[in-house]
């Protein structure tokens, strides 16, 4: 057993950190304030650095690197900006990966290559008003007419929506079939007639990542854009989320790391009662707990990522990593705000943004309760 990153993984971390600190961090607070998705910075630049297709083979426009590299990239981006982290995670794990896993050769050439190269941005539409944690509740329908499928329905809370060029969308293709059967996945291009965007959410955190509704009104999608066989959409979604959890766990890890560093920097400068506040054990013990939890989260995330690349089963590990890392992010960012005192509560300092950003990691791609459900079910099977 070896707990060391490879030279390539170290170089990647240095590169992404330098990019994140010099280019992403300076505008993070302002983008948050203005709910501004800066695609040129938050996506196009990632493409230029070869980060938009990290785990896919070179023949599909990827970098041919492993899942640990992917985790590192999302972690480092999220360390300074949770919104940029999720942009990459949703693009890669939720849209590009199902096309890689389930797509035909033609679909991969047409859609995966531009996604991986970073010329097309991806999004994933599963959630609906009545289908949240219970993805089987999907009501969007797709009805076959000749060589086309006609989609009707609404998806909500979709990350990257509006700006994304390519969408993987789940719809019910068989109304008679049992809940989890009869759902199929489709690749839908932005601009397809009958496909439009609804309201943009006003959010607590990750405010520079756009979250929007997808609206399908008699939207005709060619049969060749069905992703995977008819009726296996639920499986496509679950496999997609297994990988996605590594992305969100990495996002949570990065946010927690950023808050930990901010807290260390601040508390080692701040003086009260004629002392550095770190001289108070009540403060240094908090830092110790935060650092310990962040380190535990990191090991869990990298372990799940390692298993994904080694083609070992990893849905249990990624659920655990996502659960632990997201709850760590929430605890650590809340503690960081506490350690900053009143300053931490203001927008002068980044920790309040980190705390707002952290919360979503306990909710999307399966709430913490759903992760426990997944983990518990596997334990008691």
């Amino acid at each position, binding site marked *: 057993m070896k707990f060391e990153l490879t*030279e*390539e993984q*170290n*170089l*990647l971390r*240095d*590169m992404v950190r*330098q*990019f994140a600190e010099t280019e992403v961090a300076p505008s993070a607070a302002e983008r948050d304030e203005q709910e501004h998705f800066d695609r040129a910075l938050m996506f196009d630049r990632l493409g*230029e*650095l*070869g*980060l938009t297709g*990290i785990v896919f083979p*070179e023949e599909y426009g990827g*970098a*041919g*690197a492993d899942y640990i*590299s992917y985790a590192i*990239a999302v972690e480092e981006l999220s360390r300074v900006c949770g919104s940029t982290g999720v942009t990459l995670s949703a693009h890669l794990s939720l849209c590009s990966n199902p096309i890689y896993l389930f797509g035909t050769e033609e679909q991969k050439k047409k859609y995966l290559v531009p996604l991986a190269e970073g010329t097309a941005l991806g999004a994933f539409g599963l959630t609906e008003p009545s289908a949240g944690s219970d993805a089987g509740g999907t009501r969007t329908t797709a009805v076959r007419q000749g060589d086309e499928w006609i989609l009707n329905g609404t998806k909500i809370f979709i990350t990257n929506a509006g700006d994304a060029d390519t969408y993987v969308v789940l719809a019910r293709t068989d109304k008679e079939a049992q809940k989890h059967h009869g759902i199929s996945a489709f690749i839908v291009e932005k601009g397809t007639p009958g496909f439009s965007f609804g309201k943009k959410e006003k959010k607590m955190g990750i405010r520079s990542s756009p979250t929007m509704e997808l609206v399908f009104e008699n939207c005709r999608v060619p049969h060749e854009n069905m992703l995977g066989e008819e009726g296996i959409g639920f499986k496509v979604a679950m496999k997609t989320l297994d990988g996605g959890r590594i992305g969100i766990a990495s996002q949570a890890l990065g946010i927690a790391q950023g808050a930990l560093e901010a807290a260390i920097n601040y508390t080692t400068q701040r003086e009260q009662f004629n002392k550095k506040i770190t001289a108070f054990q009540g403060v240094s013990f908090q830092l110790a707990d935060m650092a310990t939890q962040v380190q535990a989260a990191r090991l869990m995330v990298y372990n799940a990522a390692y298993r994904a690349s080694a083609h070992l089963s990893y849905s249990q590990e990624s659920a655990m990593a996502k659960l632990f890392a997201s709850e760590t992010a929430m605890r650590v960012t809340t503690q960081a705000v506490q350690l900053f005192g009143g300053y931490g509560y203001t927008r002068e300092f980044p920790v309040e943004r980190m705390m707002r950003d952290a919360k979503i990691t306990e909710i999307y791609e399966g709430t913490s309760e759903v992760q426990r459900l997944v983990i518990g079910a596997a334990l008691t099977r």
Partner: protein
Amino acid sequence: MKLLVCIKQVPDMESKFKIDADGVWYDRSDLAWRMNEYDEFAVEQAVQVKEATGADLTVLCIGPEQVKETMKKALAMGCDRGVHIADDQSHRRDPYQIASLIAAFAGDKGFDLIFTGMQSQDRGSGQVGVMAAELLGLPAVTTIVGFALAGDKITVKRELEGGVKATVEATLPALVTCQLGLNTPRYPTLPNIMKAKKKELLAVAAADLSPADALLQTVKLTFPEKKGGGVFLEGDVGEVADRLIRILKEKTSVLA
């Protein structure tokens, strides 16, 4: 055309340094390592020349096994191959010995242009490049902030004290040492990091290059005494502003 760029691995300058037990260098354990900043300008310039002319570019680094990681960054930035002069004791060598190793390797290779950083961030002697040039019998231009190549001639800009710039010409072969402001080093993209893994990395033992004897010996390394913060400029606002501008120009690159 054949190019050589010499790089050094140095600790992250934000590390918390401790003096080593021998009292003449810093403790090398528990540090994060990176490419010497000035060497990044050297690598970037060399890669630009390679891209413009199709020249062949070798990166050289002297040090223990761990420097290979930094060499891979140079390979990911665009160098064609690496030469690792394996030397666990490189941090104890004086600038002349390091220069002698570079010269011993480069002597019979016929490099047309050699790039180095103007100094290292840890030792900061600024001597290695010029000494290597001397040993190789090459003209050296130091602290360059501008570079142009035409035929077998280079025209470089040097920055002198007080922001004055000088333009210097030299005929190849030549050696230049690179200064902040020369260029903006590119990021090693992930695909290039992955490709660097497959590039040739030759190892040569330092002993096989028979390094010269040291000319200098570090006797003691100490931390500077803690000083009170900063300089206060007092007086008439206009005059204070003029002095501030002068200081910024002379001591920093803010107003280059």
